[in-house]
């Protein structure tokens, strides 16, 4: 299993590097806003929103790329000739996706907690708010990634891109509409479960 995860990370290293660079940009923006701009949240949102959208598209793209490359190059067909099951291949892929999302979320949560410690009064509501924001951010990233996995398992190069892009934008706008509350969490969780079930069913039953 570890070998499969390592293989996936190495094959998709560009997404990890991209995620790390964008996270660094996001952290720089957050710290700059916190220190220099008098915590002007309008400016912060204006600067960070495009980065977040690019990150989400990146996660979708990673899922699409993993599945499409597999189908086009018959990677799973080769791997299943080794002592590997389809379940293990898919699981390794999902774990890799989670790791890529954590590459973004973990450094950002650490930075935010440090900034909150420095600038925000020690009231429990703030720490629970930070937790909610990062739970939703993780779920959003994972939902976009799962969407990519589901749409990427196709022989067509064109089909996954527009559908995936539209749904990624809808998912990202969901947070703007619903905020970071339990409703958004619930919707994202349901979406993730539905995407994973469909991906698993497609990946297990179709020819490799």
């Amino acid at each position, binding site marked *: 299993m570890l*070998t*499969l995860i390592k*293989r996936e990370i190495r*094959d998709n290293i560009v997404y990890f590097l991209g995620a790390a660079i964008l996270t660094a940009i996001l952290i720089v923006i957050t710290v700059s806003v916190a220190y220099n701009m008098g915590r002007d949240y309008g400016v912060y949102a204006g600067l960070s929103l495009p980065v977040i959208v690019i990150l989400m598209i990146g996660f979708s793209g990673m899922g699409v790329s993993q599945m499409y490359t597999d189908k086009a*190059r*018959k*990677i799973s*067909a*080769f*791997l*299943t*000739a*080794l*002592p*590997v*099951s389809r379940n*293990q291949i898919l699981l390794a892929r999902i774990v890799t996706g989670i790791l890529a999302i954590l590459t973004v979320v973990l450094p950002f949560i650490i930075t935010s907690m440090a900034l909150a410690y420095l600038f925000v009064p020690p009231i429990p509501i703030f720490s629970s708010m930070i937790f909610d924001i990062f739970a939703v951010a993780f779920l959003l990233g994972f939902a976009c990634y799962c969407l990519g996995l589901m749409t990427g398992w196709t022989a067509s190069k064109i089909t996954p891109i527009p559908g995936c892009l539209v749904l990624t934008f809808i998912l990202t706008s969901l947070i703007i509409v619903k905020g970071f509350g339990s409703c958004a969490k619930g919707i994202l969780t349901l979406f993730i479960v539905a995407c994973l079930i469909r991906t698993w069913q497609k990946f297990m*039953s*179709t*020819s*490799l």
Partner: protein
Amino acid sequence: MNDNVINVENLVKYFDGRCVLDGINFNVPQGCIYGLLGRNGAGKTTIIRILLGIEPATRGRTCLLDTESTNLSPGIRGRIGCVAEGHNLIQSYKVGRLIKLCKNLSLQWNDESFDHLMETFRLPKDRKIKDLSMGMRAQLNLSLAMAIDPELLILDDPTLGLDTVARRQFLELAIEVIQKQGRTILFCSHILSDVERIAERIGILAAGKLVVDCPLEQLKERVRKLRIIFGEAPPANLYLTEIINQQIQGREMTVTVANWNRQKQAILETFKPSSCTEIPMSLEDIFIECTRPNPQPVEIA
């Protein structure tokens, strides 16, 4: 638990409404080398893909090493070596990286045998798979399949793209594997002389059906091609069953009959032919006769 390493029962496969496999049944016992033959598009690769669980069957049941193909666990897969048609290795990898991946994923790895093969084939470890020639890819694929000391070796047109020397090396390797007790091989190829050289049992696919499934020697015994010369014009009907092919030219009739036996010989003698000579048939001749479009396919089993 049964002695058959491969079981195929009533296998049916449709592709976009077109029937490719129509009720295929065969078994491969332990230690047997089974040569599966058929023309392009006959369904050989499809059978192998269904056996390996890569392709779902429309109907029927296939088992490898007593396990249904759809439920092959990594433990069972680790006992099967496979050389796929077209050698679908991971094209973007370097040879060294692919070897490391296969070694790490395998349950057992025979370094000695693998290094010996790499030396024999002189495969460069620092080149990308996509930069290798078809022949080199075939050699790498074969080396990877052999390195796990497989109990069952599935070879789908493994010598495709190999030159004469490499083909000979491959066949010698296959024979080496066979000599290890209990090893079973399922071997598909278009090069019938290769199959004839190593296979014990032959299956021939034609029009979605397995028209031949018997030991190679028995096949050569059972299929007879006869040149019969009659005193007058040949009879319109010989009243022989299982005629694969029949051609008439003047007083001469050339007939290929399946499942030849004394009864058929006696029927033929009632027509009192002037002469009847047997034309020797190689596996290639038998293959061509059996895969000829025939309104009533004859089964030899």
